[in-house]
């Protein structure tokens, strides 16, 4: 085993890349849950976004259009969930599972003929001088644009929830939908918008995996990242900045175990590959002690009687 082969600068830089997909998806789900809706379909929306983005990027040659299509695809799929839970008043857990199962099938169908193709490369941020700085340059200024988009999204979500009126209304709907309804807020409309935002974010996260992280298309390639995003929201106690922290923790574990695999550690590859999931469980256990921060109306069906 040769641990000196692991370059700490590259490790941090690739950690940021590994964390981005799960971070964007988790931020979307955070908004959905703050509005009082539990959408377990993140995995399905991510994989659908992954193939939508991949297909459009390959067809048009533009990664940007790919990401737009991915957001659109994820949002469109999430509208199925919105219809089921907000209008047909179906159980949110069951509907979310349905969305994941459906999304996995849909993506496999759409993805036929896209296996083994390389997508167009996404441009990297490249600032003369700054990107060439030792250590800092590679970590801070050498990434693709989506890494910065993810960070901006976290900041924007935080500011939206904390400082804007719309954010306050969203939180009110999530904490007590009956009271919000009595005050005249359109509970269903706000929730549908939140679900669409969550779907778009999940789609972007999925496309990040298929267009940048991997980059190619294989069936079921999200491999549980959507579920980890859900766990991340719990870990973050529904706070945007903690999503960032959790995503970097998860990204760190993922990158580290990949590096250890490459370095030839004496632990079998399969056990190293388990580690992100095991760490997620461990973190869930630690964070579950404090239940008080969950939105009070999370997962409850809203039906206005008057």
């Amino acid at each position, binding site marked *: 085993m040769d641990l000196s082969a692991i370059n700490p600068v590259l490790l941090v830089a690739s950690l940021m890349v590994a964390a981005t997909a799960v971070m964007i998806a988790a931020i979307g789900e955070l908004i959905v849950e703050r509005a009082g809706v539990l959408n377990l379909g993140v995995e399905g929306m991510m994989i659908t976004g992954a193939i939508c983005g991949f297909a459009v990027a390959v067809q048009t040659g533009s990664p940007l259009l790919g990401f737009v299509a991915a957001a659109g695809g994820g949002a469109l799929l999430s509208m199925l969930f919105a219809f089921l839970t907000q209008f047909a008043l179906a159980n949110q857990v069951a509907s979310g599972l349905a969305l994941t*199962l459906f999304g996995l*099938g*849909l993506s496999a*169908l759409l993805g036929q003929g896209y296996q083994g193709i390389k997508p167009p490369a996404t441009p990297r941020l490249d600032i003369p001088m700054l990107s060439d700085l030792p250590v800092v340059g590679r970590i801070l200024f050498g990434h693709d644009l989506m890494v910065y988009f993810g960070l901006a999204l976290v900041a924007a979500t935080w500011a939206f929830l904390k400082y804007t009126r719309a954010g306050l209304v969203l939180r009110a709907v999530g904490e007590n939908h009956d009271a919000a309804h009595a005050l005249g807020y359109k509970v269903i409309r706000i929730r549908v918008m939140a679900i669409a935002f969550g779907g778009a974010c999940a789609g972007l996260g999925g496309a990040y995996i298929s267009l940048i992280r991997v980059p190619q298309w294989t069936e079921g390639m999200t491999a549980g990242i959507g579920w980890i995003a859900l766990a991340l929201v719990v870990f973050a106690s529904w706070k945007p900045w903690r999503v960032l922290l959790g995503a970097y923790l998860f990204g760190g574990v993922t990158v580290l175990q990949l590096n250890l695999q490459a370095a030839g550690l004496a632990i079998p590859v399969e*056990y190293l590959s388990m580690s992100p*999931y095991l760490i997620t469980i461990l973190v869930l256990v630690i964070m579950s002690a404090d239940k008080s921060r969950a939105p009070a109306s999370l997962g409850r069906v809203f*039906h206005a009687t008057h």
Partner: protein
Amino acid sequence: MVRLEKRLQPSAVFAWATPVMAVIATMIFGGLLFAALGKDPLVAIRTIFWDPLFGQYAFFYRPQLLVKGGPLILIAIGLSLGFRAGIWNIGAEGQYIMGAICGAGAGLAFYPLEAWYIFPIMVLAGALGGWVWAMIPGVLKVKFGTNEILVSLMLVYVAEQFLASVSLGLLKNPQGFGFPGSRNLQQYPSAHNAEIFEGTGMHWGVAAALIAVIFAYVLLSRHQLGYHIRLTGEAPRAAKFAGVSPSRLILFCLGISGAFAGLAGMFEASGPAGQITIDFNTGYGFTAIIVAFLGRLHPVGILLAGLLMALTYIGGEIAQSSLGLPSAAIQMFQGMLLFFLLAVDVLTGYRIRFGQREAA
């Protein structure tokens, strides 16, 4: 204007009618999907739903109905108990894998000894493997309040990695010419889950599924524990006042669903599949969730829904070979079924009213 009005009692008619409506709607929209893929929709639907039962080669496909339906029903019955009480074990796939590994591992430990007690030990080991795997989310939920949905699902990925590890290492066939995968249990009579009646597809796993259906029916309709499960699902607060212990119920529901999933995995590994390989699991644990809902979480409903879902698997395979329908289309078809079911289910609990509401 369309609006919904809550029924005082869930409609008994719609409780039976909605699964049928969902199947019909899925056939229509599935037909449109197949048409969009350039296949004749009527031929595709007939190939999936009719040919396996009454087509030219039906004698070959009919036994498959039990082979595929058995594990689906067995897993779905276990899951339905938890779902009724609002306990969401969605990691049955992982418990299925662990049951298969433990069951097959117990059998292979005796190789090449031939004895009557080997198969019963394998059955116990399979159930135990699934039970232990499901107890992890159960104990964590009871002790720390951890979300069982996420933990049970994470454990699926852990189990998949473990499966890869044992097929390449611990359980690898020493006479397998270096190929991954265990010895073939079909060639080891004491450990082989053979058909009970030759040529019917009826193996011990199917028998176990039928016993599970009866067990669940009696439990839910005749036993106090079943009453507590239903009460917790419908009125959690009332259940608490009635002295139902949520912790005990969580452990029971997760444990039994895990044990059933483990059994299904063990019967599959020692019977139709024959060996433990890297890609041993085929998604039964997830499809069983659809089966449980399609059967309205009722044992008899699940029996019928499991057979229907098995039909779509077999029909899907036929359509794949004869019409060139992609396998993903069937997967989507199954997902669609769950969607339509959830959508039409609103009719059970609510009435649809047209026109303006009158002043109250």
